[in-house]
């Protein structure tokens, strides 16, 4: 065991530029990942906030009576994908816009007098926690087809945008992981190449592949571990200096930080695993 660890550390030390590069790349990956994670948390927050708002707003035709509008709301409530509805009367709409305009509301309301220009509406909440952009479009289409519906609005664009951000975040994350694995495996390949004579000699004096491989795997782990530690340190520095600007209130919780370090270590091991068999066989 002591042999394995000292051997792996020796590899990292003797790896020179490439080992340092591998560690830096993992650090960068960690930073990127940490930023993505924090952004992702923000995105989730945004999605949660959106769940509090109606996903679709139906505007009935003006000629319908209030009773007819309520009947329409009940009908919409019957659609399976829909959680609940709420009728917003002209007066309520005006009151809300009043809230919106704060202290100027009184002046505005007075100006409108009897002629309230705001339409009645039926606010619709979908059943699922986070509405899918696709199903939302279909739902609004369905609602638009009901008789007496003037128009339908839905928040497709912002939801789509958030979905896109989410996908991009995942894709970037995956890409960054792949790059890390490749760079670490490259550093280990270089170690194997630089030490090919030595590894060859070890084979000749009776070392199994396992004996040769384990320190190399551990080298990958150590590079992953060191890299993520450095990365977390830098990320924390970034957070302290720029976090409030970016609207990020809290740093990674300990569990997430531990997960990143653990993940990086595994990534390092994967990097160590990749080149192994073929490389070693070609060398020895």
């Amino acid at each position, binding site marked *: 065991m002591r042999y394995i660890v000292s051997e792996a550390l020796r590899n990292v030390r003797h790896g020179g530029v490439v080992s340092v590069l591998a560690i830096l790349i993992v650090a960068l990956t960690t930073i990127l990942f940490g930023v993505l994670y924090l952004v992702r948390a923000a995105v989730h927050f945004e999605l949660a906030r959106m769940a509090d708002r109606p996903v679709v707003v139906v505007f009935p035709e003006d000629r319908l009576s209030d009773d007819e509008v309520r009947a329409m709301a009940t009908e919409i409530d019957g659609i399976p994908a829909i959680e609940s509805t709420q009728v917003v009367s002209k007066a309520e709409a005006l009151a809300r816009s009043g809230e919106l305009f704060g202290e100027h509301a009184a002046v505005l309301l007075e100006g409108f007098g009897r002629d309230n220009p705001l339409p009645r509406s039926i606010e619709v909440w979908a059943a699922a926690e986070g509405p899918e952009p696709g199903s939302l479009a279909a739902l609004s289409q369905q609602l638009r087809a009901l008789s007496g519906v003037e128009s339908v609005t839905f928040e497709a664009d912002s939801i789509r945008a958030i979905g896109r951000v989410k996908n991009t975040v995942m894709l970037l994350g995956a890409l960054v992981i792949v790059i890390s694995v490749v760079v670490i495996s490259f550093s280990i390949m270089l170690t194997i190449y630089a030490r090919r*004579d030595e590894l060859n000699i070890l084979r000749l004096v009776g070392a199994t592949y396992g004996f040769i491989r384990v320190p190399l795997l551990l080298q990958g782990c150590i590079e992953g571990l060191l890299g993520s530690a450095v990365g977390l340190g830098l990320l924390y520095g970034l957070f302290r200096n720029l976090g409030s600007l970016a609207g990020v209130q809290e740093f990674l919780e300990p569990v997430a930080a531990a997960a990143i370090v653990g993940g990086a270590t595994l990534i390092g091991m994967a990097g160590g695993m990749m080149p192994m068999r073929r490389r070693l066989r070609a060398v020895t």
Partner: protein
Amino acid sequence: MTAPSRPAGTAPKVERVYEDTTVLRAIDERMYPPPEPKLPMIDASGVTIRYGRHEPVLDKANFTIHSGDFTFVLGASGSGKTSLLRLLFRDVLPTEGSVVVAGQSLRRLRGRGLAHFRRQVGFVFQDFKLLPGRTVYENIGMALRVTGCSRKQVRDRVEHILPRVGLTHRRNAYPAEISGGEQQRVAIARAMVGNPMILLADEPTGNLDPHLSVAILDLFEGFNLRGTTVVIATHDTATAVERGKRVLRIEDRKVREGVR
């Protein structure tokens, strides 16, 4: 050489007398009596070695070496001595024919099996193949490390062999800091530290002073007396003949008995 006289009742100081291998040999002989029966340790039949499209180095050669034998393999430079030793070490595979060493058919050996096989066969390479970044002690110990020996086992065995090759005082030196002769003894110690059944040595006297050659061959004879089967490749007929041991010669791509 004669054993130095010493006052009765004092233990022999190994450090001081290591150069005189007769003493060690006498001790070793008493500790490890040579084995009785002669079993085939190495058996090669119909062996052809061919590198790529070149002319074969060996062509359907046959030879047998028995357990406990001390054998010289003689041949001109380029005749295939190194190839033959590497064959016995399964560092090259025969293009044709079969090689059985210590009861194992080499053709099927690979991976872990090959590693275990090589622990039973010590090889003193012509270029020594020492690890440049490790001390003498570490280089010798490496042959035990790879077998999973504990630190203590490694220490005990390396300490045991260091005086036998006269390297106790060089234990912490790196290969680049010691002479060619010393490097060679490191290589010999590494080959022997695991107590292998077979010792293969490629031109071990190739570039040594005559008196050093004698010392090295004495060392091999000492190991042989303890039961190790020894095979030494050399291009020097005199070296092979002087010892009065068995000689195999490589000639016309065959392995033949005797000097000629």
